[in-house]
């Protein structure tokens, strides 16, 4: 009976294993799909702008656009071609049709409005600045891409204000004054960002503080685009107090984490001590 069961099971296993080997190649398509498809399935739809621009039929300078975008801060935040240029990335035939809202490449003086579709506050302040007014007056003046680049846009930082960049149009002196005015708040923001990241690694998601820091940073950078160092200085205290509040929240969270560590260490010691007592009791009984 036992032998029959044993061989029965073995035969049953072979019955399943052999066909699986024998028919292994019959579904080539299935295998290819399994190996090539992302594990998640096709979550990201094909973007015809990218596939066309990356193809060999394009001029090299057009091909570089996709590579530049892929390395950008926009790409990391899933801001794609159509968000700036309009059009339909899902339809090759009508991708660049004005009917689908395609805008193409803006003229130099139209760039602020082009970027300002999303960066609304910055647009307002920029247009009020010397840079903005000069640009609109048709004079030689920088637009957004002169400082930030176009497709390979990186996360903005105070380092954009540099002698190398600013002296292309004017002396660095005024820009330096602005950079000094920005320095305190920008450095603080960057430190707080690092501390929030550390908090995340500790298992706490400081969503509210992250949002608060992001909006404070956005508001502060909006202010910078007025290119008015006095205005930045006059509002520095206001931003400092906002950052102080975030800092306090982070400190409170760290304090809570320290308490947690102490409490769980106490539990650990309590259980360990009880374990030792029980062990000693066992030994006493044995004796």
């Amino acid at each position: 009976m036992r032998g029959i069961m044993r061989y029965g099971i073995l035969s049953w296993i072979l019955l399943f294993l052999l066909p699986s080997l024998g028919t292994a190649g019959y579904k080539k398509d299935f295998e290819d799909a399994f190996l090539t498809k992302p594990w998640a399935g096709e979550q990201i739809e094909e973007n015809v702008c990218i596939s066309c621009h990356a193809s060999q039929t394009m001029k090299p300078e057009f091909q570089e656009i996709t590579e530049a975008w892929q390395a950008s801060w926009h790409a990391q935040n899933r801001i794609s071609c159509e968000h700036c240029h309009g059009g339909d990335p899902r339809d090759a035939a009508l991708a660049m049709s004005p009917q689908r809202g395609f805008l193409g490449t803006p003229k130099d003086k139209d760039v602020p409005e082009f970027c300002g579709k999303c960066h609304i506050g910055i647009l307002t302040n920029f247009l009020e600045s010397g840079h903005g007014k000069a640009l609109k007056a048709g004079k030689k003046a920088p637009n957004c891409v002169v400082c930030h680049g176009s497709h390979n846009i990186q996360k903005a930082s105070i380092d954009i204000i540099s002698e190398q960049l600013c002296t292309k149009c004017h002396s660095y002196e005024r820009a330096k004054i602005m950079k000094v005015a920005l320095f305190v708040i920008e450095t603080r923001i960057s430190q707080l960002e690092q501390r929030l990241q550390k908090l995340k690694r500790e298992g706490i998601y400081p969503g509210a503080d992250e949002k608060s820091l992001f909006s404070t940073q956005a508001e502060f950078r909006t202010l910078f685009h007025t290119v008015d160092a006095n205005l930045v200085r006059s509002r520095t205290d206001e931003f400092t107090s906002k950052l102080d509040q975030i800092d306090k929240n982070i400190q409170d969270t760290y304090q809570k984490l320290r308490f947690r560590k102490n409490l769980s260490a106490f539990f650990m010691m309590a259980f360990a001590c009880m374990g030792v007592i029980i062990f000693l009791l066992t030994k006493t009984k044995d004796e």
Partner: protein
Amino acid sequence: MLTKIKNWLDVRIGLNTIFQTHVLDYRMPKNTNLLYTLGFLAVIAYATQAFTGIILLIYYIPHPDHAFRSVQDIMTQVPYGWVFRQMHAVGSNLMIMVAMLHMVTVFLMGNYKRPRELTWVGGVLLLILTIVFGLSGYLLPWTQLSYWATTVVTSMPTAFPVIGETVSQILRGGDHVSETTLSRFFALHISILPPLYLLFMGIHLFFVNRIGISATPFGKADEEKRPLTEYKRKTYPDGYPYYPRFFQKQMYMMMAYFTVMFFIITFLPTLYFPDEANVPADPFNTPQEVRPAWYLLAPYQLLKLIPNKFFGIMLQLILVLIFILWPVLDTQQEKNVLKRPVLRGVFLSLIALWVILLWWGRS
């Protein structure tokens, strides 16, 4: 007062007799060791998971828009919620470890052999249920880690032709891991698996009690060699009483279990929470590294290594089947694995392979 309650219960349900028969008069084999307490430890682990799980259930919201937030609220707003969440998360991993260790020690001591085949099968099914518990609970915090790990695991059945896609779709409730998947996994985790687990645990313990505990082959080889023609409960009249000696061993191991648990919570709080575990799930943002939980890493890595996915999945199903039915396949009478070089070699190779695949899958 206590004596009064005891007497009241005794005249109604015979409490003293139960205590006398199952605790004081219950004899354990003389050569039992600490490894015999691993089954008890698995029960304790389950009880801890059930208790902490119920606390979490009060605050958890099984919806993609709220799941992550609610877990964060448990961690930051609910008084001492973090203790229960950490105990539950660390406990789930420890429970799987304890169950695996229990199976390995039972295997090494040959205690799956007749007449305990059914106890073994029940144990393997409990281990599988424990892993399903872990898998279903993994998605619930709705983090980047849990979302993509579940995506990977629910993709694994697609390697199976014809029905693979359907199985995957049933698990996910659609083409992708979504709100439906979360609802399904939540229902599975809190209302289907717990009673199922209790049922199997009851059956397993019934078998253990009915057949009698097996003696380890490492000490005195006192397992009876009689032909299996009629039912007979294995007893040890010359053994030592369950209480207090073995009970103390169980308590000692229980304390060790909680010490390890709180050691991890204190000194390695992020051991089971990498960076992706602290970020809300984003179906449109695939992380750099997508991998399942450690206990599914070895099968996942094996599936990635074998170029033919159908063969890969069949091989794994067959290995599981062999594992379940091992007592029927192994007809050798010798229990001591030290006296069986081939089995010992195969077993150690499999363990080594599992560790290598796990490590490979991690890196």
